[in-house]
C-alpha cells in the first residue's frame, strides 16, 4: 500500500504506471553489481523511481579519476568506500526506500548469496569474468540480467530472461582482453538509463524488453542500432547441455 507521501512523490509516474505499477516497484528488490560509471546513474534512477529495495555491491574506494563519470560520488568522497558514499547519496535522494550496500568483490563463490532474493540483476561491471558469474547466477535463480557495457562513446545493452532469451555467454562467448578503457560520463549515463528503463518495464510489466535484441549506441555518429540475437543451444551457461565451462554457483 502506498503512503500519502509516496502517492505524492511518485504522482507523475503513477500517471504512467498506475498505482498498481508503483506498488510493484515498491515491492521490488534489485541488485546492482558495481557503483561506478554504470552503477551510479542506475542506482540514482532506480532510487528516485521508488524501487523498494536496492542492493549495491562494490569493493572499491572513490578516486579522483572516477569523478568524470561516477556521479554518485563527489570530490569530498575521495578516499571513502564507494558503498559508503553511495548509501549517503541514495538515502538523501529517497529516504522512503531501503538501500543495502555490500562492500565485497563479487565472485563465483559469493554471487548467489550476495544476490539473495533479488528480482533482477543490473550489470554495472567493467569486466566479462564477473559478468559471466552474474549471468550464470541470474540463470540459476531464473531472474533477469540487465546487461550494459560501454567504451568511449560507444555502448551496448540487452536484457537476458533465463529460459526465454539468449544469455550473455550466448552473445559474447569469449571475454575481450582487459584494458584501461576510455570513457566520458555521458556514455554510461546513456546506457545506464537504457538498463533502468528495461528494469522498470520488467517490474511494472509494460512495454517490450530488449529480449534477444542487442541495443548498440554509437555516440560518435549518434546512431542507434539493434542486432537480433538467438539462444545458442550449445551455450555452456544456458544451452541444452550446460558444460563444465559454466561457472560453479
Amino acid at each position: 500500500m502506498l503512503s500519502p507521501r509516496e502517492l505524492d512523490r511518485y504522482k507523475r509516474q503513477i500517471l504512467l504506471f498506475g498505482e498498481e505499477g508503483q506498488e510493484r516497484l515498491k515491492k521490488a528488490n534489485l541488485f546492482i553489481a558495481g557503483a561506478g560509471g554504470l552503477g551510479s546513474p542506475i542506482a540514482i534512477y532506480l532510487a528516485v523511481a521508488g524501487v523498494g529495495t536496492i542492493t549495491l555491491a562494490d569493493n572499491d574506494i572513490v578516486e579522483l579519476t572516477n569523478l568524470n563519470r561516477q556521479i554518485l560520488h563527489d570530490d569530498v568522497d575521495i578516499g571513502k568506500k564507494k558503498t559508503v558514499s553511495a548509501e549517503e547519496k541514495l538515502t538523501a535522494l529517497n529516504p522512503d526506500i531501503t538501500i543495502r550496500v555490500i562492500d565485497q568483490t563479487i565472485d563465483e563463490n559469493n554471487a548467489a548469496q550476495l544476490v539473495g532474493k533479488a528480482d533482477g540483476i543490473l550489470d554495472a561491471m567493467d569486466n566479462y569474468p564477473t559478468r559471466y558469474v552474474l549471468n550464470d547466477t541470474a540463470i540459476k535463480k531464473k531472474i533477469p540480467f540487465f546487461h550494459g557495457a560501454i567504451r568511449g562513446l560507444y555502448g551496448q545493452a540487452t536484457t537476458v530472461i533465463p529460459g526465454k532469451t539468449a544469455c550473455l555467454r550466448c552473445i559474447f562467448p569469449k571475454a575481450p582482453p582487459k584494458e584501461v578503457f576510455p570513457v566520458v560520463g555521458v556514455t554510461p549515463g546513456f546506457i545506464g538509463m537504457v538498463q533502468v528503463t528495461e528494469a522498470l518495464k520488467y517490474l511494472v510489466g509494460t512495454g517490450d524488453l530488449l529480449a534477444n535484441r542487442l541495443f548498440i549506441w554509437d555516440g560518435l555518429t549518434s546512431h542507434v542500432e539493434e542486432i537480433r540475437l538467438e539462444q545458442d543451444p550449445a551455450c555452456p551457461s544456458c544451452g541444452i547441455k550446460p558444460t563444465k565451462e559454466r561457472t560453479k554457483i
Partner: protein
Amino acid sequence: MSITIRFFARFREMLGTDILVEHGDGLFLTDLIRNVASGNKEGVDAIFDEEGNFREYVILMRNRRRVDNRKASLVTASDGDEIAVFPPVAGG
C-alpha cells in the same frame, strides 16, 4: 555480387563502416573481412590473430544472425549479405 561490411565500436574507429564490396561468387567470410581491413594493420591485428584466424572474442553476424567465427573460413558470402563485425564492449 555486392556485400556490405559493418564494423562496430573500436573496429569502426579503425576501419570505418558500411563498406560496400563488389566481388565474384565464392568469397569466404574470413577472406572478405581480411581484404576489407587489409589497408589498416591496426585493424587487421585487432580482428585477426597471428595465424590469420578471427580472434576468439570477435563477434561475426551475417544478416543479423550469428556466425561462429571459427567456421567463417568455410562460409561463403552471398549477394546482398550484410556482415557485421564487432568486439564485445567491456567497460562499465
